[in-house]
């Protein structure tokens, strides 16, 4: 039996296959398809302090090997989460990480403090990279001072595992990663979506209500993989990788590039059971390649 356990700071994952924020709801939607305890963890849908209606319809457009979304962090706010959703999911035997979003540092702090009360949420993913709304913090995520500042302030009020989610819409993502590492982030996760756009040539109109939106899916995989590799070589803290993972080979490539844990995002829309399948195939791969411990795959790119 191969050993799939990985640790990110205090967070123990039974395996490195997790689901990405915004693509697995609040985990319970996935429980309609499989036993949530099978996967390493769920990065829950982005939460904000207050209720947000999100952007107007249409919110998505299909693109070559990918999709654009302009959801705009629709969610009922943290109080609703704590009262109505948390009780339902808290006993899932897996890691539940909450994805935290704000438009000001105060928002991030207030939200973190609320989350801190929740026993079964042992980590947060600080989203400073949502391209679709101001409240997604991309203003923070695309500059080092911005990223440092929000990380530092949140770190002050949060002792559990602090993961900072990075934007790929930057010139040098490893600089941003180093900046948040300096301010005490326990891990970085990347990438969030790329800012993109789609037009309907016949109607001559944008396909999204917001004109631009976030690109995800296999189209972005080569760029995401490069960024994970660059960041893993630049920081000492663990890296959580994602961006277009569609199968076990993709997940393994991210691990070889340096990701300790991977997140499956858009692919879940095509195959809600994908994470379960990838765990199986990862085990087979490790058997085939004679790798006992999954941590030995991490950063194992041979050059």
């Amino acid at each position, binding site marked *: 039996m191969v050993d799939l356990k990985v640790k990110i700071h205090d967070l123990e994952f039974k395996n490195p296959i997790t689901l990405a924020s*915004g*693509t*697995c*709801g609040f985990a*319970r*939607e*996935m*429980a*309609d*398809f499989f036993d949530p305890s099978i996967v390493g963890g769920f990065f829950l*849908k982005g939460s904000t302090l207050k*209720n947000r*209606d*999100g952007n107007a*319809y*249409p*919110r*998505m*457009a*299909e*693109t*070559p*090997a*990918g*999709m654009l*979304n302009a*959801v705009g962090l*629709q969610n009922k706010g943290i109080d609703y989460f704590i009262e109505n959703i948390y009780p339902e999911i808290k006993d899932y035997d897996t890691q539940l990480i909450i994805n935290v979003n704000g438009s000001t540092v105060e928002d991030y702090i207030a939200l973190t403090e609320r989350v801190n009360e929740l026993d079964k949420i042992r980590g947060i993913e600080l989203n400073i990279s949502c391209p679709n709304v101001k409240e997604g913090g991309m203003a923070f995520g695309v500059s080092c001072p911005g990223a440092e500042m929000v990380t530092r302030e949140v770190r002050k009020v949060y002792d559990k595992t602090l993961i900072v989610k990075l934007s790929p819409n930057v010139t040098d993502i490893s600089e941003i990663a180093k900046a948040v590492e300096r301010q005490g982030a326990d891990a970085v996760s990347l990438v969030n979506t790329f800012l993109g756009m789609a037009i309907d040539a016949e109607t001559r109109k944008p396909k999204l209500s917001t004109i631009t939106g976030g690109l995800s*899916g296999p189209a972005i995989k080569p760029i995401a993989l490069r960024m994970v590799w660059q960041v893993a070589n630049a920081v000492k803290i663990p890296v959580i990788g994602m961006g277009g993972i569609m199968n076990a080979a993709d997940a393994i490539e991210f691990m070889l590039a340096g990701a300790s844990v991977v997140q499956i995002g*858009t692919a*879940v*829309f*095509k*195959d*809600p*059971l994908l994470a379960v399948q990838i765990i199986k195939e990862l085990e087979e791969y490790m058997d085939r390649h004679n790798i006992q411990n999954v941590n030995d795959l991490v950063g194992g790119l041979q050059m």
Partner: protein
Amino acid sequence: MTKKFVANFVVVENKPLNATNFLIKVKSDSTLPPIFPGQFVNVEINDSKEIFLRRPFSIFEVDQKENTLSMIVKILGRGSKKLTEIEPGNQVSLVYPLGKSFTYPSSTDKVLLIGGGSGVAPMLFLAKEAGLDKTQVDVLLGARTKEDHIDVEHYSKYAQLHYATEDGSKGEKGFVTQHSVFTSGLRKYDKIYACGPDGMMRAIAKVAKAEDVFCEVSLENLMACGFGVCLCCIEPTQKGNLCVCTDGPVFNIKDLKW
């Protein structure tokens, strides 16, 4: 929480109903879960370079003994086109059953079901499953011309069928909302159900609201996941933005902002 599935089905039938609509019947090798009118499946389109996401289609008929279900697929764009080219014997992956069904009528209800375009599918499914006497059920189908109507005569054992065409080539001339069944007053119905183009449903909803008759419509919009996690398929409602895929596709018009 209802269990949902991802499974490969075998195509057992793919037949053209008219120039642009196809009946596609698929079979599972295991027992199907309960499936209700209004629910839909999300279909993977095989072997197409251009298509990334699945495509949603209403469930039209279910045979729990044969483990088959069918859908009526209208060619709209690239995905629906490709799907109508699939050959019997091939496999197709479905995520199912998705969405909420129509509220079933009670046994004494008189109901009107209005279908336009591919919206015919869930209406006929409901007519069949409602368990009412055919005298209690009016089905009104609208299309542009005779050729755009599909042959549904065998449903006359479940309902009284009425047709409207824009050019008068079958049934009454005009939109469904101009049909005598509709214009003679909706109050005689306990429940009205509609599925079809947005404009048609809005027109129906307006009258139903004015006459204060219970009315449910089934919405279609752009979906990425189909099971409530992406939040792409929203409809603004009195209760805020709701997901068409999980809070719908069936909505009571009272809840909509129409």
